[in-house]
């Protein structure tokens, strides 16, 4: 992979055995927390440092992390117990970066989580791990046990008056439990139905107490910022999106994988230099910049820099920077039939628009792909998507189903019309048919 950019996130992860405490500590893990506790760096200072660094959440929305941390109420005025929940329910199609962190550098991740807890004066951290992530779960759980034994988790950490416990929780496979309030409901032992907001988690979170939910990669950045400073952090990336991020590339490329890159590297560079170009010398057709919820972009926008604002300007979203690359032989209708099926399957079913809309979109995509489309279906996909988003439902799953639909019709309308006119998928030889995916039922 490219070595022209400075790296820090995955440096330790590349060392053999870094998931154990001994190796991790030899390579700098837990140094930042030691520094905070030894030098007596205050809570407010840590938050200020993270604010100054410009760190933005890596879970998809890109909200400034320092600001999120500062939403937690003052413990003097509000002495309720408070919690930090780490969202490790990584389920967005295309995204697989947190898995790398948890598998290869669980101590770095736990240190980050404890720094977050320290800054927000929480004494409990919950780690909500996606159910399918068995090895990551085991690695983090083992790391928690090791760290607890070493006095890094538990009462009076490193002899200071900071105490913090870490509890692990394994999800049961629902995408919706990665939505922060769905995650909290699930942690409480209920169905993962997202909560209407307000009230926001910082005031009314887990069990009604102040809670902040952070992504794994977000807190993983914190120890580096503490040790090396905000200025160093800002020296990487762009003005609005600082630091490095993990880009997970999948699809029709020669070298798919998770790569550490600074914000602002162009998608073309990621595709051609980092991932070794398109497979089988095919032409690029389109790509999702940040996971299946972000609208698909055509090949003509491949020079867009991978950072929040630039991607937003194209009408899509950075999301979790999980690029899904599709070559010239990919049927956009088929691809979105699969995406729509995913959202139909994962909608929690609370809100009318999402429950019925995700099913409806899937049905229409399926009909068009399999030769039963009507021209008016294309406009109906647009009007239905507009009825589902933005902000019309409790959480953003409805938006996540509507946004890619609107994007694909904006950029590839012709392909839909061709399907309808031919009454079959033009990417298949005439007379053949794709297997029909059953509905989500």
């Amino acid at each position, binding site marked *: 992979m490219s070595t022209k950019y400075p790296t820090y996130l995955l440096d330790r992860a590349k060392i053999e055995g870094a998931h154990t405490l001994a190796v991790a500590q030899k390579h700098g893990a837990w140094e930042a927390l030691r520094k905070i506790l030894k030098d007596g760096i205050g809570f407010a200072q840590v938050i200020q440092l993270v604010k100054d660094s410009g760190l933005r959440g890596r879970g998809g929305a890109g909200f400034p992390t320092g600001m999120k941390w500062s939403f937690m109420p003052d413990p003097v005025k509000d002495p309720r117990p408070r919690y930090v929940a780490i969202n490790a329910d990584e389920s967005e199609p295309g995204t697989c970066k947190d898995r790398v962190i948890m598998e290869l550098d669980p101590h770095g991740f736990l240190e980050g989580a404890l720094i977050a807890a320290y800054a927000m004066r929480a004494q409990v951290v919950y780690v909500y791990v996606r159910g399918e992530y068995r090895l990551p779960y085991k690695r983090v759980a083992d790391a928690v046990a090791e760290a607890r034994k070493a006095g890094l988790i538990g009462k009076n950490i490193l002899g200071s008056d900071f105490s913090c416990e870490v509890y692990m929780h394994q999800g049961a496979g*629902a995408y*919706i439990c990665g939505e922060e309030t769905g995650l909290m409901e699930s942690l409480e032992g209920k169905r993962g139905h997202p909560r*209407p907001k307000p009230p926001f988690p910082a005031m009314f979170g887990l069990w009604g107490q102040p809670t902040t939910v952070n992504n794994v990669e977000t807190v993983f950045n914190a120890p580096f910022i503490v040790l090396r400073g905000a200025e160093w952090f800002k020296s990487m990336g762009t003005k609005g999106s600082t630091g490095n991020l993990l880009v997970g590339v999948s699809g029709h490329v020669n070298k798919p994988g998770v790569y550490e890159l600074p914000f602002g590297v162009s998608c073309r560079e990621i595709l051609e230099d980092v991932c070794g170009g398109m497979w089988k010398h095919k032409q690029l057709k389109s790509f999702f910049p940040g996971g299946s919820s972000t609208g698909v972009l055509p090949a003509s926008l491949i020079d867009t820099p991978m950072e929040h604002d630039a991607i937003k300007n194209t009408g899509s979203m950075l999301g979790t920077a999980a690029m899904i690359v599709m070559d010239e032989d990919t049927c956009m209708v088929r691809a979105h039939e699969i995406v729509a099926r995913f959202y*139909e399957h994962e909608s929690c079913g*609370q*809100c009318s628009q999402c*429950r019925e809309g995700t099913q409806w979109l899937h049905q229409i995509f399926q009909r068009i792909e399999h030769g039963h489309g009507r021209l008016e279906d294309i406009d109906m996909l647009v009007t239905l998507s507009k009825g589902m988003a933005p902000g019309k439902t409790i959480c953003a799953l409805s938006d996540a189903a509507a946004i890619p639909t609107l994007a694909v019709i904006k950029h590839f309308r012709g392909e839909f019309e061709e399907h309808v006119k031919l009454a079959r998928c033009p990417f298949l030889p005439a007379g053949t048919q794709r297997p029909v995916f059953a509905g989500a039922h």
Partner: protein
Amino acid sequence: MTKIILNGREVDVDPKQPLIHACHAHGADVPMYCYHPGLTPVGSCRICQVEVKQGEAPARVVVACRTPVAEGMIVETEAPRAHETRRECLEFLLKNHPLDCPICDKAGECDLQDYAFAEGQGEGRSNEPRRKLDKRKSLGEVIVLDEERCILCSRCVRFMEEIPKTPQLTIADLGSRSTISTFMDQPLRGNYQGNLADVCPVGALTLKQFRFQARVWNLKKSLSTCGECSRGCAISVEVLRNKDVKRFRPRYDPAVNQWWMCDSGRFSSARHNAEERLAPAARRGAQGLEICSVDEALAQAADTLRARANAVCIGSPFLTLEEAKAFAALCGTLGAKPAFVSPPATALKDELLNTGDPCPNRRGLLELGFEALEPAEAFARLAAAAVGVLAGERVIELQGRGELAALEGPRLICFDTHGLEGAGADVCVGIPEQVEKSGSWVNLDGHVGKLTIARAAPAGVEPLTRTLASLASLLATSGVAR
């Protein structure tokens, strides 16, 4: 109170209630499915979208059931954007709804039907197959679930959790596969299941008792009070073609029952559909009891009372205040002390509504100076008397019809819906029953519950107040044996 501007009009609203409550309180008709004023709002159906402007921020479209009111808030319920969002939401709700209104018991009082009629487009855009689910899934003895009609508003789930506090329902599975279910399909339990059919905004949860019984627009609804216990829940009595009482439904009364009633009260409606009634009256003649006019019966009753002294007067616990006053006046004329039969407490007493006391007007009768007698005691007094007057609905039944019929000593003058066969019965006068009379009951907290006439009494039957007063005046003009 908080001041908001609702559709251009400044109104005072309750700051503790969500915006939708303020809208409804001031005549703005915002639709709702998941919201119910008696349950925790969850904001999931998304139909109650209204446009709200606060301060300098641009106007937003929000769900009114999850939006708190704030001073100076400007609310437009009919803003084009709000309207459009509601219309979109309605289209999604109708996407899989079976539209079997012609055979749906809820038709005519269905929130989805009403709003679709008012706002929806004439033709649906969907040509996808509709969801096929179980159309008649029994949820126990009371409720049947039509999964296809269900719009998953979760009112029923929250009702069971929050009101009788016996959580038994849940939404099973995810997304478009969601259905309402009990754990392992166990039948529902408890005395409050009937309310599920009321809280259901569509025809998904219906009462087995009411299933296919009537089109609701053919039902004449009259306000009344439940007589099943001393709570006296406010109800609506719904009668088909001036004949059968098809159902009792709770009526909102903040001081008594809010929106709810128990199943034993709800299903007591069946008792009011007896085929055989005493009408108008009967008196003992040469061939035993013979049907006669009320006047003839009262004349004979007066003769009997004049001939025998020390009448024992037993009223029914269902006497209204008005009937009880007339009865007390008659007792005064006869020199008797008014009393009523007080059956033992039932096992139905609970924390919510049912008091377990089967006397709906106990407090009213006691305040009028009536003596409460256990059935055995009332029977013993009658058995020892030379003449007895029994008055009110079920007064015979409560003391034992067979036992009373077997009495040979006392001459009995009965005012009841059914006559008394037997040697002792001298005169029986038919009376209107609960749903055929107007009057009032006083519940255990002193709250007055009204009864109104929901159905005409059988031909010739006169109100008990009038027949008792007529008898008293007959006796007053001609004297009584003392």
